[in-house]
């Protein structure tokens, strides 16, 4: 079967590096590790490119592999006894950007304290604007599980925000 789409690897990197890096960074909480994950994901894309049929297919593939490789990287670190997010409050490289409000940056830091599955669902929901059905496909999980992770994650995040952000606002 022939396909009309002729992928250009360099162009795909330009197009998706921010997305892949952001997913990896928010999942792992470590800039260096996120870079490594992003590189691995793109090198894997290079090997799998002949099998991908359209730009949309590439996008979904990248999201799925980025989330999976980030989870693998975190698992490897946990085996070695390193928990990256524990040190996040003191880590200046943790995902926070000057472009966003300090409140937003704080919110993002609070996200990092959530369990991995809830964090993954919320990242795909709010960064990638995916529906629960799409998140279920990306994470290879049942839709009901994803909905539950989203609801619990949001509830937990709200609760944490109520406590921490009030303190933060008082501090400002």
């Amino acid at each position, binding site marked *: 079967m022939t396909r009309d789409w002729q992928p250009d690897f360099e162009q795909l990197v330009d197009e998706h590096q921010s997305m892949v890096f952001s997913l990896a960074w928010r999942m792992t909480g470590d800039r260096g590790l996120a870079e490594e994950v992003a590189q691995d994901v793109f090198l894997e894309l290079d090997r799998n490119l002949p099998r991908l049929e359209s730009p949309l297919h590439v996008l979904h593939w990248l999201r799925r592999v980025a989330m999976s490789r980030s989870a693998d990287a975190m698992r490897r670190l946990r085996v070695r006894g390193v928990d990256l997010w524990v040190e996040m409050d003191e880590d200046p490289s943790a995902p926070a950007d000057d472009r966003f*409000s300090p409140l937003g940056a704080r919110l993002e830091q609070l996200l990092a304290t959530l369990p991995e599955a809830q964090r993954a669902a919320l990242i795909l929901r709010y960064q990638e604007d995916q529906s629960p059905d799409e998140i279920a496909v990306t994470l290879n999980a049942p839709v009901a599980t994803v909905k539950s992770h989203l609801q619990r994650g949001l509830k937990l995040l709200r609760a944490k925000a109520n406590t921490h952000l009030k303190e933060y606002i008082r501090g400002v």
Partner: protein
Amino acid sequence: MEFEPKDDFDRELRQAFQRQPAPPGLKRRLMDQRRRQQSARIHQRVVLWQRLAATLVLACTLGGLLAWRHVRQERRGEELRQQVLTAFRITNHALDQMNRQLASHSGGDQE
């Protein structure tokens, strides 16, 4: 989200979760690594073909040697067979001669 009303918190989350720009050197490092991997893959392929060619040459040499040995043995067997046949022919010829001589002698005695 269908099961969660959109409010300030939701909007704040959406804003906080915007994509971050990738580090400036990421693409360059990625392309360098890709080049290295590609050249390593090519090298591996060349080595593989070299090994295959060497195996093929070795197999051909070994096969040729065995075939040559087989042919030589066959030729030698044929030579020996011819020698034996020649020996039989000579013996047969000598026996015939003796037989004829014996026949002529026994004919003379009867007369």
